[in-house]
């Protein structure tokens, strides 16, 4: 049996770990509230942009634009959004795996990673990383999304990538999120849905349809990336909160069982002492 002092030391160490996990849980949950509000603020922009693009493309039949054009896929680009830090359950691993699933040939893939966990993941697997961003995943800024969006559009236009994918984590609720892999480029309008067809036939475009598309599609790509970044940030915090909550709970359980052990050891020690004193006093002789 472990000595009393050893058990006491363990209780102490588990206790301090528990304090840390508890604090991290609180921090994550307060950040989560803020991040959730941001997510609600970014959604309308995303939805409206989608609607306009769908309107233009569906309204003017047979419009062609480099960003809409499907090419034979030789090379792919993947944008992976993860966090910078661990201690958030399977969050980073799940989304990284989702990103990896679209890679069939490592030679033809270029990756853009956001967050150090995603960078490490691709590096270990020998995927060619052309650009990595760290320190932006917790608090995504629109200007970062702009940079990444421009890079993605560049790759696509220069034919260094025939398809651009985006892997992020979709927020369902605080307790559940789902890794997602979507195709960003070429833009596939058929997924957008078509709500009001009569409006579109009459719509005037200024300066003209091509110019508007030329302007709107990069915007759309940026918005998708930004939305995914914000959404992933919320998921990371949610995942961390859940992970830290269960860690705190586990620590409590551990402390309870260690306390039991400690008391047993204490009792044993006292009993032994009494036996020794009684034995030493020679009453029973």
């Amino acid at each position: 049996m472990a000595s009393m002092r050893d058990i006491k030391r363990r209780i102490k160490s588990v206790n301090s770990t528990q304090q840390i996990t508890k604090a991290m849980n609180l921090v994550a949950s307060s950040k989560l509230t803020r991040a959730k509000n941001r997510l609600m603020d970014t959604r309308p922009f995303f939805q409206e942009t989608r609607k306009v693009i769908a309107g233009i493309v569906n309204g003017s039949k047979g419009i062609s634009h480099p960003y809409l054009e499907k090419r034979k896929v030789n090379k792919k680009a993947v944008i992976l959004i993860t966090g910078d830090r661990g201690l958030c359950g399977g969050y980073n691993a799940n989304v990284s795996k989702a990103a990896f699933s679209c890679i069939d040939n490592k030679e033809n893939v270029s990756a853009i990673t956001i967050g150090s966990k995603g960078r490490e993941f691709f590096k270990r697997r020998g995927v060619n990383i052309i650009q990595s961003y760290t320190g932006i995943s917790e608090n995504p800024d629109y200007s970062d999304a702009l940079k990444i969006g421009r890079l993605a559009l560049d790759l696509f236009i220069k034919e260094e990538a025939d398809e651009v994918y985006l892997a992020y984590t979709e927020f369902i609720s605080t307790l559940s999120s789902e890794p997602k892999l979507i195709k960003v480029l070429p833009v596939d309008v058929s997924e957008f849905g078509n709500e009001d067809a009569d409006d579109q036939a009459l719509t005037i475009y200024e300066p003209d349809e091509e110019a508007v598309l030329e302007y709107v599609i990069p915007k759309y790509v940026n918005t998708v990336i930004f939305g995914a970044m914000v959404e992933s940030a919320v998921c990371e915090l949610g995942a961390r909160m859940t992970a830290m909550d269960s860690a705190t709970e586990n620590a409590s359980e551990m402390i309870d069982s260690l306390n039991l052990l400690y008391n047993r050891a204490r009792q044993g020690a006292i009993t032994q002492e009494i036996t020794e004193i009684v034995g030493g006093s020679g009453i029973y002789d």
Partner: protein
Amino acid sequence: MAENKVRLRIVTPVRELYDKDTEMVIMRSSIGDVGILHGHQPLTTTLDYGLLRIINGDEEIKATVFGGFASVDSRGITILSDAAEWPDEIDEKRAIAAKERAEKRIKSNDESVDIVRAELALRRALLRLEAKGK
């Protein structure tokens, strides 16, 4: 006259700036100012840097809009912009400082200066000051 109003929404990536019924909206499109009233034909246009004027009777509110595009349909006007703000959110001192900085950059003849970026910064600063001035 509620039936003669048009719904205006101004949305930026970080927030929804405005969502109300208005009588008239004047915006700076990339080919000139456009005024939109109730019942306008569906229109999609790109926007330039400019002041947006929202007119309700005698009342007129302004907002700065930094590019983006507007879509007008039967549901109303939706303005999607990278950035938009109310005049009272503008920090005048900062705008003046930005203007001077940009002017200096443009005049400097330094090869490392990104002229396009400096010009954009100057236009932003000028627009902010214009919004603040009135």
